[in-house]
């Protein structure tokens, strides 16, 4: 179980509880977090669940794998902290995770 904070571009924050094993994208969709379209349903095939991981959490969430890095080419305004939230697995170690939703998704 982990508590995840989603911060919108306008500063609005929402904290949700996510079970270990699910993805950050699933936690967002389940809690109707705006800005996470997840068009492909988590297949790492659309880049519409793009988030910026808070600097303090970048080490804990790790680096994108090749497929995810490739798919990030389809995201808008990609930064070093960019991740696809469907590829971040929730675990106890991520309790307190903070991610930001981009101003614009495709």
């Amino acid at each position: 179980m982990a508590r995840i904070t989603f911060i919108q571009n306008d500063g609005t924050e929402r904290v949700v509880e996510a079970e270990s094993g699910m993805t950050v994208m699933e936690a967002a969709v389940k809690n109707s977090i705006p800005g996470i379209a997840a068009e492909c349903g988590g297949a790492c095939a659309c880049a519409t669940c793009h988030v910026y991981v808070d600097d303090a959490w970048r080490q804990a969430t790790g680096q994108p794998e090749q497929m995810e890095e490739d798919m990030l080419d389809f995201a808008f305004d990609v930064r070093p902290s960019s991740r696809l939230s469907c590829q971040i697995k929730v675990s106890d170690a991520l309790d307190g995770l903070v991610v930001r939703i981009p101003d614009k998704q495709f």
Partner: protein
Amino acid sequence: MSDELIKTDAVIVGAGPVGLFAVFELGLVDIKAHVIDNLDRPGGQCAELYPEKPIYDVPGLTVVTGQELTDRLMEQIKPFGAEFHFSQRVESLDRLDGGGFRLTTDLGKKFECKVVVIAAGGGSFTPKRPPLPGIEQYEDKSVFYSVRKIENFRGRDVLIVGGGDSALDWTLNLQPVAKSLTLLHRRQEFRAAPASVQKMFDLVERGGVTFKLGQVTELHGQGGKLTSVTVKASDGSSFEQKTEVMLPFFGLTMKLGPVANWGINLHENLLPVDTAKFETSEKGIFAIGDINTYPGKLKLILSGFHEAALMAQQAHHYVYPNKKLIFQYTTSSSSLQKKLGVK
């Protein structure tokens, strides 16, 4: 533009798994179908979004990938000889005076049919539009999401953005005609076929192509005429890139598209249907698969298959108003087996 007119029993809009299986179910009741899809191949989302991804809930198949399922369905529907019309989108649907419909695609192909089966899933796959302020005013004038005619780019300064196959292919194909060609990508690595990447870097060495790292953040120009774009480099600094034309290639997204203008009732971008016939608010127009909605609807491939079977029963009434349809099993009916080519 073609002025071809095709007359047939049924037109299926969408060649995803459910559209493909509709060919089967219609075929069993002697309804001949043509299938139209905006993609260049069958499979819909299965082919475009998850060809390599496993699907675990197709009955009878422990696990199957999107591409395998597509291939198997294509094999299964072969006996019915449906004709496919790819890389085009149905733009308009008109009612004919004597009953039936006329559909016209964006390539100008026309179809006249007795029933329409909309199996368009999440809508048609259309190129993603970068959310850049004011991009609308440049679209189709200076910003293009596809290349219809290479000649339109002759003698122009062209900027291609992206790192996939489309970006690389068009870099290679437009380079000979463009006045200058710049490829902009956010990183050194490419998703595109290694051979095309190599060809592109060869051209860079010979001075035919300029390759730059970065992402477009602003467009500049007037009256739809692009003059330059602002690019954010990977180190966070910005620079101006002069260009007359920009071609962004950021993949595809699903948009409902022209279906919304066909006079069918819509509910939150879905087509409400009844659960006995899967017919929309319009008689003779059916909706099956992810694009329809009804109480309890689940967006599952298996639900779409069921919907296709029931749809075909009602479609039979329209195509053969005077014929009684007797329900038969493929296991035991010799006439069905003859249609399947197994007897």
